[in-house]
């Protein structure tokens, strides 16, 4: 029975990272360092079934599986770059919480800066225009009827 289980386990095969990103290019991690790096790398990956949560933060089974895979790859000596590349090859750039500065996604980085510069330019030119404009002439105020009567009365008393 044990032999049959062992034979079956030997036959089973899951897709290997080497198939996608080649041999490990780092050093195998263990212990506390492995746990720390698993959390660090997991925090860079998006949980595909959650709303904007990282693999490190989510308790969803899919995220737990992905975190387990990150841990296993770090244990085998894969670098952070290789691990992110492995997940990107399966899920696309969507899985990276920090989008790459390339193609359309570069807009994610550029648009806020462009919007800020545009806003600053609008404020600057509006203020400059306002400061250069001559002060609006003060229109003569029509005299209040009551005040006119008061003035007449006062001037009559004086004379």
């Amino acid at each position, binding site marked *: 029975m044990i032999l049959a289980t062992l034979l079956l386990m030997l036959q*089973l095969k*899951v*897709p290997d990272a080497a198939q*996608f990103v080649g041999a490990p290019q780092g050093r195998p991690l263990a212990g506390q360092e492995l746990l720390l790096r698993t959390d660090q790398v997991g925090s860079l990956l998006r949980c*595909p079934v959650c709303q904007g949560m990282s693999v490190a933060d989510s308790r969803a089974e*899919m995220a737990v*599986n992905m975190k387990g895979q990150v841990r296993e790859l770090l244990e085998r000596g894969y670098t952070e770059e290789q691990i992110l590349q492995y997940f990107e090859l*399966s899920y696309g750039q969507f899985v990276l919480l920090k989008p790459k500065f390339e193609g359309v996604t570069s807009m994610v980085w550029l648009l806020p800066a462009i919007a800020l510069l545009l806003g600053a330019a609008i404020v600057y030119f509006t203020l400059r225009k306002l400061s250069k404009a001559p002060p609006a002439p003060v229109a003569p105020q029509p005299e209040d009827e009551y005040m006119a009567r008061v003035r007449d009365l006062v001037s009559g008393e004086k004379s």
Partner: protein
Amino acid sequence: MNRTVLLVGIVISAVLVGILSVGLGKNPNEIRSPLIGKPAPSFALKEVGTGRTVDVADFKGKPVVVNFWATWCGPCWEEHPVLVANARMMQPNVQFLGVVFQDTEEKILSFLQQRGSAYPTVVDEKGKTAIAYGVGGVPETFFIDRNGVIVAKYNGPMNADAIRAHLDKVMR
């Protein structure tokens, strides 16, 4: 100044409406996977019920439909009869294969006994195969051509029309 502001507003709105209309016009089930056009990740997993190993490489030479599902997923119940009917109809020209993850063998077996089965179903322990295929939620279906290259990916429950349309692509 007011005219300039209006013009800039119109241009920005037009660009946003254009981007949205392109995005909304797409079929949300037809998500472009980075694996399309690439060799399907190889795997050999344990078949539910028999315990034998099913290697996807053994099916090379004929188109393969790999369906990721789970018994706790409602839409998977909905598409199951469609997949079974099409598998029966297309055999032996097309190989269907079910890959179940985040589930127990007992529940899978009970599901298949109650609802019927026409193709092998394997268990993906720890979801490693699902991760290699970029599976987010179930059901997701991959169409692999006879050379072992992924031709299409479908997200969500498959209906008869969607299966036929995708099988046409994979049979070419």
